[in-house]
């Protein structure tokens, strides 16, 4: 195992409490940030907090991989579940934790150069505090094994996100309505979720996920459970930007500060999708007739609509960030389509695409963040000629863009191939047709930008054109190279996804 050194080198307390420390450390650091006297100290603490969380989640993953099919259960305050709150980490959420904490660490790294340029001389510690709260909330959603606790963490991260998006108002006032509509939609989603939980609680008398799952077989045909599932599906669907509940996303991503867009695009919808997988497969087992009908006839058509409609919308955007945001909604469609297949291969392909999409969309938004503050513009026309003036930034952008298209030798190709395989294996050839067609649409919208970048003369040659700062280039290129590496040897993420799918479906170890 690659991760063995992480486990052997970690101290005993870290190994024993990793499941809770991954959430608690950033959460406790956040109020400290608010008191920090200087911007620089606040930023260093942010990086330290996210990096520590990343380390804890690697430890968790290493523990899980030692015994295939195992799960870590951590009783908060030693109150045994189902009475107390349980943090429960298995192969599925260990993967998600590694993904969001890793992307969060990279995002906090680039926070300094981008914020320094976007908010010249202002106090940043409250903004960073909100970021760390958002981070801790997302990690909490991924780590918890308690249905209501999940709602709490979801709200922690969402409230912080509204603040973060609104912070973009310094540069562009449109961030305010974007944050407000996100607030309204997000609150609606949370309410739906909590109503669903309430219905389930009425039927089962417990809030612990594993406990609910145990009681499910005895409750088939129970109307309150069915209604609960519907409410949860809509609530989490809103958070995951499931078409047509995605209206909040394009504006929120387009007008938030650069590093926030990067962080949200790589993590926020992913965590909601994870919760959806958890609910659909671990708690409501998919072999029940009512459920498979939901998967096929609700999720699959919505997913395909997202893939086609939002890809077309992405083609007609003039702002690169909005284009990427619409593309994100389309990519959520890919993942939902994979999930809706309902087989182990499908969920595995969905998880792999979730993973690779975070890598490529993170890199794309990171490159855009690096460019936007240097050029004060994010329309495609502003990008013209950047291939000459900012070759390193744009080369990484191009690699991530090709990965998004799904060009061979990039990570995106592998995950799309797995997805296509999962679809065809079930005989869903019509869905595979939509898959390849949507991929073709992504050629067009990415190609438009790449053509402007590399083949068109700059709009205003006298503008102050330069590379993104080194502090941004390094994480950017890490992501770009990982995109290529996983296109050549996808063993690690594919293994994670297969194990995660097996854990979600309760099949034990994948191999």
């Amino acid at each position, binding site marked *: 195992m690659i991760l063995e050194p992480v486990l052997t080198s970690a101290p005993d307390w870290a190994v024993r409490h990793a499941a809770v420390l991954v959430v608690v450390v950033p959460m406790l650091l956040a109020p400290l940030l608010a008191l920090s006297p200087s911007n620089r100290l606040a930023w260093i603490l942010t990086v330290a907090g996210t990096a520590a969380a990343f380390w804890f989640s690697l430890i968790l993953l290493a523990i899980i991989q030692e015994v295939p099919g195992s799960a870590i259960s951590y009783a908060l305050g030693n109150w045994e579940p189902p009475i107390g709150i349980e943090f429960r980490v298995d192969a599925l959420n260990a993967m998600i934790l590694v993904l969001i904490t890793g992307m969060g660490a990279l995002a906090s790294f680039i926070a300094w150069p981008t914020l320094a340029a976007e908010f010249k001389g202002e106090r940043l510690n409250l903004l960073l505090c909100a970021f760390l709260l958002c981070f801790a909330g997302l990690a909490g959603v991924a780590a918890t094994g308690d249905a209501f606790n999940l709602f709490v963490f979801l709200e922690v991260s969402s409230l912080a996100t509204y603040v973060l998006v609104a912070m973009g108002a310094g540069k562009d006032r449109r961030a305010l309505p974007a944050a407000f509509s996100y607030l309204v939609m997000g609150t609606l989603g949370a309410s739906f979720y909590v109503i669903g939980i309430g219905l389930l609680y009425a039927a089962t008398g417990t809030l612990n996920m594993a406990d609910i799952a145990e009681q499910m077989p005895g409750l088939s045909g129970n109307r309150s459970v069915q209604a609960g599932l519907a409410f949860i599906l809509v609530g989490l669907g809103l958070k995951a930007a499931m078409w047509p509940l995605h209206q909040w996303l394009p504006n929120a991503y387009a007008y938030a500060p650069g590093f926030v867009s990067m962080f949200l695009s790589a993590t926020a919808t992913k965590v909601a999708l994870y919760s959806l997988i958890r609910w659909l497969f671990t708690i409501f087992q998919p072999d029940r007739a009512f459920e498979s009908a939901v998967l096929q006839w609700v999720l699959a058509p919505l997913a395909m609509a997202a893939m086609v409609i939002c890809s077309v919308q992405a083609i007609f955007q003039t702002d690169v960030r909005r284009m990427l945001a619409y593309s994100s909604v389309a990519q959520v469609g890919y993942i939902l389509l994979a999930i809706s297949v309902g087989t182990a291969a499908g969920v595995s392909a969905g998880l792999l695409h979730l993973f690779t999409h975070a890598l490529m969309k993170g890199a794309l938004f990171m490159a855009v963040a690096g460019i936007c503050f240097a050029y004060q513009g994010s329309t495609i026309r502003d990008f013209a000629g950047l291939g000459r003036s900012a070759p390193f930034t744009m080369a990484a952008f191009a690699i991530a863009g090709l990965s998004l298209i799904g060009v061979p030798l990039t990570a995106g190709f592998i995950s799309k191939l797995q997805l*296509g395989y999962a679809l065809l*294996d079930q005989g869903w050839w019509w869905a595979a047709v939509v898959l390849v067609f949507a991929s*073709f649409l992504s050629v067009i919208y990415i190609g438009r930008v790449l053509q402007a970048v590399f083949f068109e003369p700059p709009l205003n040659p006298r503008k102050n054109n330069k590379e993104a700062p080194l502090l941004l280039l390094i994480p950017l290129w890490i992501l770009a190279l990982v995109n290529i590496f996983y296109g050549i040897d*996808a063993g690690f993420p594919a293994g994670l996804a297969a194990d995660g799918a097996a854990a979600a479906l309760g099949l034990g170890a994948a191999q």
Partner: protein
Amino acid sequence: MTPQLLIAAALCLPLLVAVGVALFGKVPTLREGVTIAGAVALFAVVIQLTLLVAGGARPELYIGETVPGLAIAFKLEPLGALFALVASGLWIVNSFYSIGYMRGNRERNQTRFYIWFALALSGAMGVAMAGNLFTLFIFYEVLTLSTYPLVAHKGDAAAQRGARTYLLTLLGTSICFFLMAIMWTWVVAGQRLDFIEGGLLADAGLSPFVSSALLVLFVFGVGKAALMPFHFWLPSAMVAPTPVSALLHAVAVVKAGVFTVMKISVYIFGFDLLQATPARDVLLGVAGFTIIAASLIALRQDNLKARLAYSTIAQLAYVTLGALLAVEAGALGGSLQIAAHAAAKITLFMCAGAIYVATGLTTVSSMQGLGRKMPLVFTAFLIASFSIIGLPPFGGMWPKYELLQGAADASTAWIPAVLIVSALLNIAYLLPVAILGLMPLPGTPPAKEFKRPGGAPVLTVAAPLFTAALCVVLFMAAGPIGDFLRPAFAAGSVPGLEDLR
């Protein structure tokens, strides 16, 4: 060197050339020296590999799996060896020609040009040596993406428009159809994509509907084979500098396409399954239609490069036709056509380029009588035209002979008629260029003065003369080449020993 090392060398040499060109970009002589040295070394490596294949070996190189079941692996067999030999050999000639053309034309960004050219060759080598469909697809896309900057080289609006059509058509067909077909094959063949003698899908028990759908997806998905209606990228790619049109759009790129179709016919479907596939007859009709229709369109083109492009579309359909006939003679004819058409068409393009460098002329009608001033170029053009038409003693004769044989074996009576009409059309659109150039009608105004003092650079004249001579050599060498290729098709018609046991 071991076979593994040889294959690795064949794939890496073009990459090294690209790096070398980038390093020496400021010194043109050194930069072009690197290209030529790399091309010669690559050719030597490919010859070594070909000798191994001729001895019955199948050199292999296994890199590793991306995910279980999807391996990056290389395996050279006779068809691939022939394609690699053609592409790498003509790269040498074309490099000399490029020097003359690019300098004579004072093109900009020449370093970028040589870098992408070398990368494209790497893609072609990967396609030739791929051991499974997955590897082939990877390098197929490498070839697409690396030639895009070459097509857009001029950078003006027309070049960008042409390049966009080029990229979108090739990527679109490959993603929408080819990739779909590959995924489907992966599912029905039990998570395997290897090229297997006798056909990967031969024993998969496919229903006629599935095999038909797969065949249609494959044949149209390989957009580089330029089968109608996905042929229009080829004329729009003609905005590229002529060396690109010559090597890539007459040899490497388009031949990678028809080579892929041939590989799919021989190693994925196998002749027996292909003959039992209903869609084959329809696709044979499409190929026949492409031959006639593209020739008719070529007849009406006044721009010489556009005329040659449509001629290429027609000639490529010969290979597709041969592959779909699913008999040994047909496949052999198609494979010979890969080599014979490459030598002839590169000659024609290089002649067109030489004329352009010397005079700036691009239209056929303005070239009447020009042969008096450029006799060598027009003689090379005439020889290559004869080869395309299929006259002895030129290489282009044998593919047509074998295709006729194959059509008889497959008992399809209309194909000989198509081939004959096509030969007549070839005469009609190719011969007037050379004949009217060398022997203008009375009353034609004398040709204009050269735009470039001294006429065409020596290298741009010597290169087409050399390849014209190659057309004659190919006529003589058809026997050995046929013997070299036959083992590739044998497994399809005769059951292997394993099957009998």
